[in-house]
Every structure is written in C-alpha cells, then in structure tokens.
C-alpha cells in the first residue's frame, strides 16, 4: 500500500515536472527566435507540401536579409483561413483560391490577392513488386487498379503494355492517402481527365468511397512506408519522397504515344504550357493544369502549390518583407534552392519572370 502510493506520487511528480519543463522549453524557444534576429517577423503558413522548400527558402532569405520568416505547416485550408483573417501575411496553398475564397481574401487585403506558383512537383506512381523496377501504364489501367477492377499484377491489361516484364501472380494492393491531401486532389484530377471514363469520381482532396479494396495511409511518409513493407502494393506520392526512399519501382505514365517517367522538367513544362484559370484577377497566376498535355517529355501528373499575398499592405515593413521574400522564392535562385532541398521542379523561365513582375508590384498603401 505504502510503496504503491509513494510510486504514485513520484510518478505524478515526474509528470508535472516534465510538463513544466516542456512548457518552459517551448516558451524559451519562441522568445529566442523572435529576439535573436533582432529584425522584423513575417508570419505565414499553409500547405504541408511546401514544408521542405519553405525551410530552404527561409534559411537562405534570412541569412541574406535578416529578419524572421515563419511558415507553419498547418495545411492549405487553415492557411487560407488564417490569411483571410489576416493572422498570416502570406500563405501557401495546394489548390488555387476559388472565386468565393478570392473575394473574401481580397476584402481582407483591401486589394487584389497575389497568387503565384512557388512549388511545382511531379507526383510519382510508385510500386513494390519484387523483380520489377519500372512499368508502363496508361491512365485507364492506373484507374482500373485504384478502383479495384484490376486485382492481379499479371492482368492482361498490365501485361500488354509491358511485354518484357516478368509479372508475378501477386495481388495488387492499391495505397491511397487517408488524410485530406492536395496530392490526392491532383492524382484524382489527372485520372478523371485522362482515363476516358474509367475514373468517374470528380477530383477531390478526400479519397472516394467508391474505390474498393485499397489501403489508406497517413501522409506521404505513411504511404511510402506502407508501400515499402507490402509486396504488390502501388500508390502515389510526391516524386521527391519516392526518390528519397529509393527502393520502390516507378510507373512511367502514358503521355501521347510515349511512356514518361516523372521528371521535374516534364512537370515544369506542362505548367508553363497550361492555360490560366478563368475568373482570376490579373495578380493571380492560377493555372488549370493541362492533364492531357502530350508534348514530348511532358509529365502532366503533377502538383502546383501557390503562395498567397496581398498586393498592398498597410505598413511598409510587411510589404517590403513579403515582396523581398516572394521575389526570392520565385526567382531562379529560390527555385533551384527548393529543387536541391525538396526535389521540386523549378519554374520555367517565362513563369518565373511573370511571377517576379507580379510580386514586384506589392506595395504599402493603395
């Protein structure tokens, strides 16, 4: 009895101490970053896809110009929400603003919203199948696999596109994201627009219930992990994550009459050639990605993530910082830094130039 209660007291004391220490540690940390730099602070946040790139950008920019730039990886939805409530001076989002969101955000800014592509990345369809490293699949076959219509790796539909491959009789386990994700949106949009009806669901950040037999995993690393320990699994994830893992096979998707493996160049080219989205202000570079692009080397299964900012800010310090930071991000240097750190596709020169011109107009006062 006695020993037990002593242990109990000790345990709770330890718990209280731990909590206390953690809290103080956090407090120190925050005040530390704010005071260390001695400069001004710019708060932003949003899409998690940009996380690695943002870290690289912030590091390089802060080294050059001082000040502190924060980017909270809270997800696109919360990012847009906080941008509209003016908690963030800039935000990152995987899907460009809808007309309603644009209206609300412009109202909050008191000016047009700047929306420039910052992070472009091919999405790889990766698989784990012993003895097979690459496969050629068209969009219809990928759809059939993910809807559960094709269930074996040696199915005729797969075999006829891969005459040389030794396809085993393994069951296919399609792996999708269990959380809401911009990657899922881009993947399903690609399937919806290119599979000739095999994928009937509209593009969505949530995986549809009609696709049977798949396994959902949490986040990009969850998908990669599940693919890694399941023979016969196939899934989609940011190309950089698949390359970083290195153990998975990668599908070359059918583009026109060729089969193309994911490349940064191919994704950047598709974005540059895609038409601007309708109903957007002049300061927005929102693009309807042309999923059906067929030029040589194109890779239309890709994600374009944007940065949001106001075109005017009430105080000049914020305006200058946002302008400086975004100018760096869309510049060739910034894009190369992201490519090195996060494996993204650097913006095409013409897009980079256009984005720079839009960002250059950010000012204080109207």
């Amino acid at each position, binding site marked *: 009895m006695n020993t037990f209660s002593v242990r109990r007291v000790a345990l709770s004391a330890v718990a209280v101490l731990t909590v206390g220490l953690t809290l103080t540690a956090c407090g120190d940390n925050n005040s530390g970053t704010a005071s260390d730099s001695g400069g001004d602070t710019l708060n932003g946040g949003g899409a998690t896809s940009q996380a690695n790139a943002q870290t690289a950008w912030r590091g390089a920019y802060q080294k050059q110009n001082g000040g502190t730039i924060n980017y909270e990886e809270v997800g696109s939805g919360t990012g847009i*929400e906080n941008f509209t409530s003016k908690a963030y001076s800039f935000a990152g989002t995987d899907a460009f603003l809808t007309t309603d969101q644009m209206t609300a955000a412009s109202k909050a800014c008191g000016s047009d919203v700047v929306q420039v592509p910052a992070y472009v990345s091919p999405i790889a369809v990766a698989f784990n199948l012993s003895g097979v490293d690459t496969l050629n699949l068209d969009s219809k076959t990928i759809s059939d696999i993910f809807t559960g219509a094709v269930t074996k790796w040696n199915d005729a539909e797969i075999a006829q596109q891969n005459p040389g491959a030794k396809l085993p009789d393994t*069951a296919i386990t399609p*792996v999708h994201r269990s959380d809401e994700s911009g990657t899922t949106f881009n993947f399903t949009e690609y399937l919806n627009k290119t599979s000739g009806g095999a994928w009937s669901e509209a593009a969505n950040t*949530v995986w549809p219930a009609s696709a049977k037999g798949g*396994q*959902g995993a949490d986040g990009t690393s969850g998908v990669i992990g599940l693919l890694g320990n399941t023979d016969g699994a196939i899934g989609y994830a940011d190309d950089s994550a698949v390359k970083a893992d290195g153990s998975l096979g990668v599908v070359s998707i059918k583009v026109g009459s060729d089969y193309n493996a994911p490349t940064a160049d191919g994704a950047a080219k598709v974005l540059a050639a895609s038409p601007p989205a309708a109903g957007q202000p002049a300061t927005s570079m929102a693009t309807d990605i042309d999923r059906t692009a067929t030029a040589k080397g194109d890779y239309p299964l890709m994600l374009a993530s944007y940065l949001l900012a106001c075109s005017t800010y009430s105080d000049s310090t914020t305006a200058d910082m946002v302008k400086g930071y975004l100018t760096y991000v869309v510049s060739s240097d910034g894009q190369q830094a992201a490519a090195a750190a996060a494996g993204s596709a650097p913006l095409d020169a013409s897009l980079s130039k256009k984005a720079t011109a839009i960002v250059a107009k950010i000012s204080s006062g109207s």
Partner: protein
Amino acid sequence: MTATASPQRTGPGKTSPETPASRRGDRTFAAIVRAAAFTILLALVAVFLFLAVEGWQGLTAEEAVYSPFTSFVSYIWPLVVSTLLASAIALIVGVPFALAIALFISHYAPRRLASVLAYVVDLLAAVPSVVFGLWGGRYLAGWLQPFHVWLHDHLGFLPFFGPGPPSPNGRSLFTAGVVLAIMILPIITAISREVFLQTPRLHEEAALALGATRWEMIRYAVFPYARSGMVSGIMLGLGRALGETMAVAMVLATTPNMTLNVIGTASPPTIAANIALNYKESTPERQSLLIATGLVLFVVTFLVNLAARWVAGRNARKLAR
C-alpha cells in the same frame, strides 16, 4: 501489507470526531478537495460545451462537406463501428492478460519477481502512443500477418474474418486492437493487482482451510472482493481504447467503406484517429464536422461506460443472491 491496509478500510466519513483545534484545518482541507472535484467537472462540461457549440454546424452542413459520403450519419457510422470493434478487440485480448498478470504478481510470483514485474508493467504505461504506433505499424503488423491468414482460412465464415481477402501486410483493425490491448494492459493490471492485494488475508485463509485449491480460493475469495476494482480498471482501459488516436492512425490502413471484417485489407479509422488524420488539411466546414464526430465519440464513450457498469452491476447483484 494487508496488515497496514486494514485500518484504512474503515472507509471515509467514519473517522472519529477530532479535537476542536483541528477543525479549521479540516474545513480548509474539505474546501480544497471539493474545489478540486468541481474543477474537474467544470473541465468536463467545458469540453462538452466546446464540442457542442463548435460541432453544431457539422451536423447539418451541405452534402459536399461529408465527402466521400453525403450525410452526417453515413459519414459517422463506419467510424463508430470501427471504434467499437477496435475497443472490443483490445478488451478481449487485453483483459485476460491483464488480470492474469495482476494475479501472478499478487498471488503467485515470489515477492522479488513480483515487484520487478509490477515495475516493468507500470513502465509500459509510460511509453508514448506514437511509439506504440510506429512499432505496431512497422513490426507487429508484419508478425501478425500470417495469423490474419490463419484466421481467415479457419474462421472466414464469421463476418469479422471474411469474406474479403486478409490484409497483405497486417495493417488491420485487428493489429490496431492488439496494440490497444498492450496500451490498456498496464492500467488494468495496476488497479487489479492493488485490489487483489487488498483481499483480507482471513478470507483467503478461510477458503484454503475449507479445502479450496489455490484457484478456488482466488475464485471465491479474491474475485468477489475485487470485483468493483477490476471493473473500474477495465472501464479506465476501455476509455483509453475508445479514445486512443495516434496508435490507431499509424497502424491502421484505412478505407472510407464500412466493414465488420477486422482482418481485411483496410477498415475505416476510429473516430479519434479520423479527427487526427483529417484536421490539418480541412476547410472550416470540415473542421466543424470533425468536432461533431468528437461529440459523437464523447456520447458513445459515455453510453458504453454506462452499459458496461450496468452489466457489471447486474452480475454483482446476481452473485449476491
């Protein structure tokens, strides 16, 4: 141990009136404990109000918000089923283990081994759920996969083990339930072992003197005495299993579609795991929806606890007759 414990068992409220000098101290202390009790009630009410107010819109939003479904009921139903199934597996696997360990520590093990074992089991409670989740997803799932196949082959006619193919990698609700079982084990063990130790030595000796075997002594002297403590321990464990988030989110391969098959390719996540998985990338409407699912979990937990206590109470009454 039993000797020092017995005077305390006279229970609260039976202490003899003290000298007047200590009365003010008594009153202050009573006020402090009362304040503590009400504060925790207040916290509970605050959580409930938060869930109700913030989640209200989530109950009646536009169809698109419930994607990939179209109504709140169709959205929440698979999650509720998974939550209950996972907790049931956790209890079925965990409770017998926990009680056996507690009995071993209190009545069978040599004293030194018992104290070491008790310490180790307590340590298990300090392992964070993320770690259990990582281990469960990466290793345990792989080890349990052949068992999934075995269950499917031999018991596949039951709706819980069929009809679909068994999980190719063990990332099933069953594995999640086993991980939960390990997580709730220390709670149930710690409480049960303490109440087992409280059994009056006289009862035990009387049973043995009447010719009972060790097992019969435990069955007729220890269990009836410890019943309410065991039930409390199991309830605490159940509460943790119902609400556990990270471990389930990290182990389970999910699908939006409702299924009773706990060893299939994928199951819907539990309510808590679903909130954790989706909160980050949600629009405000979806966030209200997720908070509303939290409200449902709150109510489900409450109902399950109530039902379990009623069942336990009924058994006790039956036994008393």
